[in-house]
């Protein structure tokens, strides 16, 4: 902790995730558990990425790919099964008590559903002042000033006219702005947003995304966006990571990943984005079937049952992350890595 505060290198990652794993054990009979026969939902299976201070990363993928679970682990709503989350040089997975509270002051999360994000019995002011009360901002005027400022910053003006409103009296778009205001009121360094606009009407999405982008830039926030919507990620994030069944299959600078996708899954995903130009020919990459169950994952590369380019090796071995240069990585045997896969296999066997 003391060391990291000295090295205020702008390029050093504020957040580094190493091999994050989350398995949700399925509740079964006591006898089955005694027999050691415990099944689990493999929600996240070894996710690693890092974000520089002030940087932004987007996690994209279909529903059930573990992106929300990852976000919730970053904010310690779920305990990871294994792996590390290094925030400003400190592993936050093991934080407790006062240290955890100190971390909560620096890292915030925006939820998907703004209607559900507030206690129905609190006024907007009460909901926004809560974080300040919890973190011991003693001066009442100071608290009021900060709540006012946060509401004003998210373009809810005049801010004081929202103080006495109840959540049910606001529209979804306004409420999501209040959610953003609550995330900002503690002046955090890190903000994760889980599908921040997917519950909202299309007409108000752009406005909110603009506000988020502005605030993130003004406050030099480090951000993680979770979305199934690649256009949102393209707009907000410098880095994009594509997830499939709890793993990052491809990661790199957003423009590269979206314009020149490498992994067959990314290619398929991007080919489904509608292009508003009827003249332009599109090549759709067909993928068969649905997402396999996260309880019994496919062997080898988890994408091989649906992959049009699947080879023998894909069934047997897990492709390691391959460095393609320019900050891009991909997990696919089409680009090599067959020898390294053996080593991964050995390591896994040894572990």
């Amino acid at each position, binding site marked *: 902790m003391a060391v990291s505060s000295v090295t205020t290198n702008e390029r050093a990652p504020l957040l580094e995730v190493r091999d994050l794993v989350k398995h949700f054990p399925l509740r079964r009979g006591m006898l089955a558990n005694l027999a050691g026969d415990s099944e689990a939902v493999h929600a996240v299976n070894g996710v690693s990425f890092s974000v520089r201070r002030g940087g932004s990363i987007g996690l994209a993928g279909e529903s059930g790919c573990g992106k929300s679970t990852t976000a919730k682990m970053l904010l310690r709503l779920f305990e990871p099964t294994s792996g590390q989350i290094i925030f400003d040089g400190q592993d936050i997975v093991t934080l407790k008590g006062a240290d955890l509270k100190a971390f909560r002051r620096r890292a915030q999360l925006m939820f998907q559903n703004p209607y*559900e994000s507030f206690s129905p019995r609190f006024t907007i002011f009460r909901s926004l*002042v809560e974080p300040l009360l919890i973190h011991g901002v003693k001066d009442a*005027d100071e608290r009021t000033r900060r709540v006012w400022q946060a509401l004003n910053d998210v373009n809810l003006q005049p801010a004081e006219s929202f103080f006495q409103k109840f959540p049910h009296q606001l529209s979804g778009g306004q409420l999501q702005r209040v959610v953003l205001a609550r995330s900002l009121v503690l002046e955090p360094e890190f903000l994760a947003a889980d599908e921040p606009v997917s519950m909202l009407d299309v007409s108000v999405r752009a406005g909110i995304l603009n506000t988020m982008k502005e605030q993130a830039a003004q406050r030099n926030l480090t951000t993680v966006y979770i979305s199934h919507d690649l256009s949102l990620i393209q707009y907000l994030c410098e880095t994009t990571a594509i997830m499939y069944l709890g793993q990052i299959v491809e990661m790199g600078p957003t423009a590269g990943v979206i314009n020149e996708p490498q992994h067959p899954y990314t290619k398929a995903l991007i080919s489904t984005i509608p292009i508003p130009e009827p003249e332009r020919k599109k090549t759709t990459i067909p993928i068969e079937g649905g997402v396999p169950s996260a309880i019994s994952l496919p062997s080898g590369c988890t994408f091989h049952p649906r992959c049009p380019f699947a080879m023998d090796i894909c069934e047997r071995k897990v492709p390691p992350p391959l460095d393609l240069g320019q900050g891009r990585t991909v997990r696919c045997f089409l680009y090599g890595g067959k020898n390294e896969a053996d080593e991964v296999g050995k390591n896994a066997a040894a572990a």
Partner: protein
Amino acid sequence: MARATTSSELIPVIPETQGGSGLGRLARSSVDILKRDRFALAGVIIYLVIILVAILAPVIAPYDPHAVLTRNGAWLTNQNPNGTFLLGTTNVARDIFSQLVYGARPALLVGFSAAFFVALIGTVIGLIAGYFGGIIDTLLMRLTDIAFGIPFIPFVIVLVAFLGPSIWNVVLAMALLLWRDTARVIRSQVLTLRSRTFVQAARISGASSWRIMFLYIAPNILPLSMLYGTLAIGWAILTEASVSFLGFGDPKVVSWGFMLQDAYVSQALARGAYFWFIPPGICIMLAVMAGFFIGRGYEELLFPRLRGR
């Protein structure tokens, strides 16, 4: 908690547009229910009358309920209802009407205090079990199972046998056992509330477990606690009456159950002295019924789908 209250003072005074505070809304919808639900209204009126009678007992009752009434040195035993004695007298020359009036006091005392403890203990246990889960939940729920396994009236009788007859032992027995229903229901409600997004948002803000339990979850289960509280009022009055009727009541306190027991052992039934045992019976019935009616109204408030059935 102390800090939480200060925040309401600093909210700038802005004229309320619509809505109002949570409690205000609850009060307003309660009034709505009373307007629509005649039964709930009847329940409230019955309780108001009982409360009024209990407070004004010395004014309303013409005689001391314990006094032996005499005329020219002769005991006025087993009088039939007349102008002087509205409901006649007992076999030891006490005024039945005065007893009936004073009987409202122990009924309310037992009813409200037992209901308070039942709701309070049940809510706290349900909150803790539901919120923390795991081993704490398991322990508390097995404790609830044990409480469910103990037969209530025999338990009261044993408790009274140990601690001596007093209406407070009925309250104690109810507090010790009857929280079980409340705790179960509150727990299940807490289980669903705990996973709601606004509770997770509070955790992200750094709120402690106790803050989340009492500031975020408790206000949302309060109506449910109130429902079980109102139902417990009737239960408590009935229990006190049962215990008194069985002869384990406090002999110094004139309650409706005590009156029934008194009438029973002096064979009022055989003598056809209906004016002695029917009025306290009706009072017990009205009090229990009123509690039930109010509870039913509250249930509609909680589960609007029940309306109009």
